[in-house]
């Protein structure tokens, strides 16, 4: 990475102002102005880097500027590069990358909505996070108070792109859906059965989370992190705690790292099992879902034994975990895993035994590898479409740096392969937990509580069961945060659904959607 950074300085002497390693393995490249396009282009095409996310920060009162951050990594290199581009408050505009890099489409429009910074040249600069009928406000600006009472909605509601042609019509769905799932709006343009084009409208569950992070004392904010996406409570809260720990240089005791690793994998197992059942259920194979629900309960019971909560809440803390385990709790892991492994094998055999299920899953909802990598798809959905990314291996944290495990990658990109990735990962996770339990060290389970120094920045990435979760923080005075950026993998992956449903029949939409199983709350925050 150091050669790359040296190269950036030599190639772009006009643009690059300074390079510093703010946290071990995290390099911040400060630019001279808002234009990051030339360097970004060089990193992406010349150096095979990947743009993980783009976000902004309001530093107007402190430094007189906004900052845009572009986060890159490269295959085979655990370091992160963060381009930091200042945007003058007097001219709040930056050149858009969306035309050549569709993966940043929403992220740049979020910056427009949250901060009022114009993404100049964006091919579709409409609002995305704030719905069209919101007043003209920018909630993540520092001069916008969290408790602002906004006037009632007025103005135009969102207009979906019309589809014309004989027999072509629209099917509007949501935000209240037919199943027990989160709210969002889908507008299908269809010609008879096949879907021509899907338009998404998200952010129905936007509840001011990133703004709220700036108000809560840091120890309380851990609980807010648990509520970013309730099915990934432990992964998000761990990502948050790691970011704080790195910023404040808190050393997490070894035992705590082992406990966290085990619980991260249990969260993955519980969700993958229920997804396997739900995918079968969505093509009418209900008996598989019944068994999956039963096996999932076994995992949740284990989670309750280990943390006091079925969904792993109230466990992770800054510096470690809140509660240590007794010998009997550790034994419960081994016992439960043995049963779950056996039961899951039976469940997979049942799913595989049904040819009609396979018929519905195969070649349904295909996301082609070239599209997946172009759109920046991550996690399970990416790995089923040839995108070989896994934070646990690429940017190891907790105990993962000492573990060997395989990352399943397929090329077919259909619903069936998204299911296969999950099936493979359950087995890998069980092995990871076994290896971790076998080497569980003694010692403290949490570093002593300490105030967090102000003015520190750090990021952390965690491979949640869905994919790459990123938290970036800037600490502030009074044990509070100046900014907490949350990137759920769902933000990357919604465009994949739009791509995958095209040409499929409407009746297959539920199973395609379920095979991605994205978080609305994680997207909307």
């Amino acid at each position, binding site marked *: 990475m150091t050669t790359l950074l040296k190269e950036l300085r030599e190639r772009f002497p006009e643009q690059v102002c300074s390079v510093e390693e703010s946290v071990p393995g995290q390099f911040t490249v400060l630019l001279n102005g808002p234009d990051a396009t030339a360097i970004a282009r060089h990193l992406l095409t010349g150096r095979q880097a990947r743009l993980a996310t783009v976000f902004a920060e309001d530093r107007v009162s402190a430094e007189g500027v906004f900052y845009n951050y572009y986060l890159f990594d490269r295959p085979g290199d655990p370091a992160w590069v963060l381009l930091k581009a200042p945007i003058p408050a007097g001219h709040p505009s930056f050149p858009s990358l969306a035309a050549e890099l569709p993966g940043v489409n929403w992220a740049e429009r979020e910056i427009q909505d949250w901060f009022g910074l114009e993404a100049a040249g964006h091919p579709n600069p409409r609002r995305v996070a704030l719905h069209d009928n919101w007043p003209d*406000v920018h909630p993540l600006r520092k001069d916008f108070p969290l408790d602002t009472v906004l006037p009632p909605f007025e103005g135009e509601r969102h207009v979906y792109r019309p589809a014309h042609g004989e027999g072509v019509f629209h099917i509007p769905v949501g935000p209240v859906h037919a199943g027990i799932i989160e709210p969002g709006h889908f507008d299908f343009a269809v010609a008879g059965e096949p879907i021509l084009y899907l338009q998404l409208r998200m952010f*129905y*569950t936007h509840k001011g989370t990133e703004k709220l992070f700036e108000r809560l004392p840091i120890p309380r904010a851990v609980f807010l992190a648990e509520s970013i996406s309730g099915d990934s409570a432990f992964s998000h809260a761990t990502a948050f705690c790691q970011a704080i720990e790195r910023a404040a240089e808190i050393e997490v005791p070894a035992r705590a790292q082992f406990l966290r690793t085990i619980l991260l994998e249990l969260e993955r197992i519980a969700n993958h099992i229920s997804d396997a059942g739900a995918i079968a259920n969505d093509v009418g194979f209900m008996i598989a879902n019944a068994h999956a629900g039963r096996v999932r309960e076994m995992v949740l019971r284990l989670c309750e034994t280990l943390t006091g909560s079925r969904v792993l809440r109230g466990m992770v803390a800054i510096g470690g975990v809140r509660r240590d385990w007794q010998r009997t709790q550790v034994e419960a892991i081994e016992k439960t895993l043995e049963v779950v492994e056996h039961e899951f094998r039976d469940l997979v055999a049942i799913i595989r035994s049904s040819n009609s299920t396979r018929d519905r899953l195969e070649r349904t909802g295909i996301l082609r590898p070239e599209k997946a990598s172009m759109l920046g798809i991550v996690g399970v959905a990416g790995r089923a479409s040839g995108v070989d990314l896994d934070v646990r291996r690429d940017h190891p944290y907790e105990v993962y740096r000492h573990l060997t495990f395989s990352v399943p990658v397929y090329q077919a990109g259909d619903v069936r392969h998204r299911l296969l990735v999950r099936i493979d990962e359950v087995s890998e996770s069980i092995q990871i937990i076994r290896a971790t339990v076998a080497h569980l060290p003694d010692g403290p389970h949490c570093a002593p509580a300490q105030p967090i120094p102000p003015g520190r920045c750090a990021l952390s990435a965690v491979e949640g069961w869905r994919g790459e979760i990123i938290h970036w923080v800037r600490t502030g005075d009074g044990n509070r945060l100046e900014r907490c950026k949350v990137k759920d993998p769902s933000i990357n992956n919604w465009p994949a659904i739009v791509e995958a449903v095209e040409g499929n029949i409407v009746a297959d939409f539920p199973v395609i959607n379920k095979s991605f199983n994205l978080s609305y709350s994680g997207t909307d925050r």
Partner: protein
Amino acid sequence: MFKILQKTFKVGVATADYPGIAPQLAEQFRGCPEFDFDAWSDARPAAEACPTGAIAFRDRDGVRLVTVDYGRCIFCGECEAASAASAVQASAVQASATQINPVRMSQNFELAAADRRDLVLTAEYTLHPDGRHAELKSATSGPSAEEPGKRIEAAIHNLLGRSLSIRQVDAGSCNGCEQEIVALNNPVHDIERFGIHFVASPRHADMLLVTGPVTRNMELALRKTWAATPDPKVVVAVGACGISGGIFGTNYASLGGVDAVIPVDVYVPGCPPRPEALLYGILLALGQVRQRPGSLSRR
């Protein structure tokens, strides 16, 4: 096919007989915190530690009014830990022997109530100069615990009590509550054994099971869903966020609890409420279980 049948016979009955039989809880399960108001020498550490403001106090004229709102509580256990730490400090000063923590996590999850006020406990203390409690003046465990389920008319029970269709509405939740609502449909909790099932449209529903906090962007959808549900209907607000806005409270994007937007008949605390807690709340709304009088009273 043979494999599937074989597996079905091998597994047998997976369903737990709640509420007939008490559920098997892990020894570590955290229900709501319980308070020994007589022995509680200082509410401040617990209030300071509480992430959602469920424990709060107000000092006026040398008297402290402490409120505990189970409608905000996320069962995290921080109040217990903070009180234990402060009790250890206090006992070190007083050189007294073992002291029992006045704030302790229980395994009680059957907290659903028809009256929002039933979820709030209060205690009044006179104070020492250092701010610690001198004497307990009064304590309440919610004003209407002796009139369980009073707001739900008997007629609705008769009409809906035998079979019920539920429409679930996520009005802004984090998806935590939804996970446990989904679990109500698995073979272990199997809500259909009560003739209760989840339906795809509010027009088919007798009950709305609503999670929150209600976001600004979901307010209209929630109102419309409520209007589309035929009368008589029952609304159950689920989870700390559905009851009060939880950790999100109210802000520019969140309106707080469900009852800020539509009338609520039963409140089910938890974060998220475990499936048995949801079942208890739903059955309470149907009059099939009775609210446990004093289930929230001080120990």
